[in-house]
């Protein structure tokens, strides 16, 4: 028999109370772990979505709105720019890749995104890869002969139930221009999972105003420069132009993260309160267990247990409870993150629920330490048990 075995026997002796205490610790810890993972995942999602291209060129207005609407499809589309802006950029010697984008209406809540095949190309610098789950990519058709072929993001396909070969349109006025599903993408865990892609000629063909325009409209152009050193001059030149603005997505990310920081601070406060409540619960549980057990502690003292031994037993109990709760909480936190990714992954949440942070052993150690601290007062009560006054027939 050791201090730890006695402590574990005691915990097992009051199984329901011990389990409830460990579960409450686990809930608190999993809340913290899941929040950290998800907050990190949201930031990671913004970074992953915004870093493939170094510049987003669109109509003058709010830079944040431009990036949110074009890259993350989280805001209303900005006004149009002319297709010639794309042509000019494509021919600019400083530009490695230019990708035209037109963000349009939506089909059952899934945004129409018109672009060309460059959007899906596997450039060596790309973090994101597009792979087909079924069918093919739509063709780069000439403006005079739009194909109306649609490529569905994974979530858009799953949710609408559309299959290869299906024709669809939203609103009676669009019945003349139905889209035909030719491909379905694998999940990318980004906003693209909720998009319906097709060619720019198809977009212009479907849009009554665009049909009559000599110079076709676009929402934005995504730019990757040949050399990073060209980025400032491109940025400056495009901002000087009267019609366009060029936005560095990384700069917009800072704005977004600053807005998130306020929410994160509130979250931290809530988590701190949750932590305090859990600690209090451990304290109350250990306190009542110790009070119930005063007679047994006195008995152990009478049998020759030193004060340090009974102190050790109570502390070992609270440490074991905290360790069980902490481990359960870390596993639970990852499970919540896994569920959240399954449910929210298509909104751009990038998190790997199976990736264990190096900080987690430190979190576990902290939980055990705090749990032990919560058991300190009950342990001191046990420590102070006098032999002579408690040896008497304890009735």
């Amino acid at each position, binding site marked *: 028999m050791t201090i730890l075995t*006695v402590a574990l026997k005691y915990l097992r*002796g009051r199984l329901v109370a011990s389990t409830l205490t460990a579960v409450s610790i686990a809930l608190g810890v999993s809340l913290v772990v899941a929040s950290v993972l998800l907050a990190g995942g949201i930031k990671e999602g913004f970074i992953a979505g915004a870093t493939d291209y170094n510049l987003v060129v669109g109509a003058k207005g709010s830079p944040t709105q431009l990036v949110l609407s074009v890259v993350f499809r989280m805001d209303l589309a900005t006004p149009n720019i002319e297709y010639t802006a794309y042509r000019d950029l494509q021919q600019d010697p400083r530009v490695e890749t230019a990708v035209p984008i037109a963000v349009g209406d939506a089909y059952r809540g899934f945004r129409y995104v018109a672009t060309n095949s460059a959007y899906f190309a596997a450039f060596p610098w790309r973090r994101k890869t597009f792979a087909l789950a079924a069918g093919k990519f739509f063709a780069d058709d000439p403006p005079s002969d739009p194909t109306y072929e649609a490529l569905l993001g994974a979530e858009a396909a799953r949710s609408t139930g559309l299959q290869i070969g299906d024709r669809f349109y939203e609103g009676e006025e669009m019945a003349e221009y139905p889209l035909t599903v030719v491909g379905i993408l694998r999940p990318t865990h980004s906003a693209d999972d909720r998009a319906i892609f097709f060619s720019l000629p198809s977009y212009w063909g479907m849009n009554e105003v665009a049909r009559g325009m000599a110079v076709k409209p676009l929402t934005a152009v995504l730019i990757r420069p040949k050399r990073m050193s060209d980025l400032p001059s491109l940025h400056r030149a495009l901002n000087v132009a009267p019609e366009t603005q060029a936005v560095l997505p990384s700069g917009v990310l800072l704005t977004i993260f600053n807005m998130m920081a306020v929410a994160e601070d509130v979250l931290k406060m809530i988590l701190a309160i949750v932590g305090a409540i859990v600690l209090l619960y451990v304290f109350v549980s250990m306190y009542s267990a110790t009070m119930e057990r005063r007679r*047994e502690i006195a*008995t*152990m003292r009478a049998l*020759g247990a030193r*004060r340090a031994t009974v102190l050790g037993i109570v502390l070992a109990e609270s440490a074991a409870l905290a360790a069980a709760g902490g481990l359960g909480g870390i596993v639970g936190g990852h499970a919540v993150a896994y569920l959240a990714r399954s449910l929210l992954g298509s909104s751009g949440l990038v998190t790997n629920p199976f990736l264990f942070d190096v900080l987690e052993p430190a979190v576990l150690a902290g939980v055990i330490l705090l749990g032990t601290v919560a058991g300190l007062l009950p342990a001191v009560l046990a420590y102070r048990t006098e*032999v*002579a006054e408690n040896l008497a027939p*304890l009735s």
Partner: protein
Amino acid sequence: MGAQSAVVLRDVKKAFPLRGGLGLEVLDLEHLALPAGSCTVLRGRSGSGKTTLLNLVAAPTAGTVHVADTDVFALSEARRDRFRAENIGYVFQTFNLLSALSALENVMLAMMFADAVPQHLQRRHSTGLLARLGLAERLAHKPAQLSRGEQQRVAIARALANSPPLVLADEPCASLDARTASEVLAIFLAVCREDEKTLLLVSHDEAALGGADRVIDMSELNRTEARKGST
């Protein structure tokens, strides 16, 4: 102090503090020596200081108490705890078994506080003790699964776990029915005799009184009681 005396108490006093700085004296004992291997029974009316006397042997507060030639009062608290674990077995009136532990674990628990039995022998030693007390079939039972007589036998085995030379027992059978009490007492006395324990027993049981080498009435031993009796 005689060489054959396992326990010698001298000028042992105990007063419980009262409000106003005064103390309520409950025990004033000039001298008591228990020969090694003897069985001494203390008897007396309720409140005559029997339990207080047992407590003071295990954890003295004033006077001198020698157990196995060691001045218990002179030891530091930690050493006194260890000394108690190795040299004094205690049987409580209310058993005081640890509810979360099995019969075997309750006996092994006492060994945890002393170095009397090597770790690898503790299980075998505890099993043997419980078997001697007729509990070979009850090793894994928790106290709540045992009868009261069985619980007290586990408590006796626990008191003997570290093979202490001295065993103190405070009305060990008072909470048992008469038949169970005499069974438990008989086995307790027999084991103590066999192992040549010095036994100090508080009891009013006829069987205990009959089996004792010496019966002491607290009114003769405790000068506080004697003073009460003369007023």
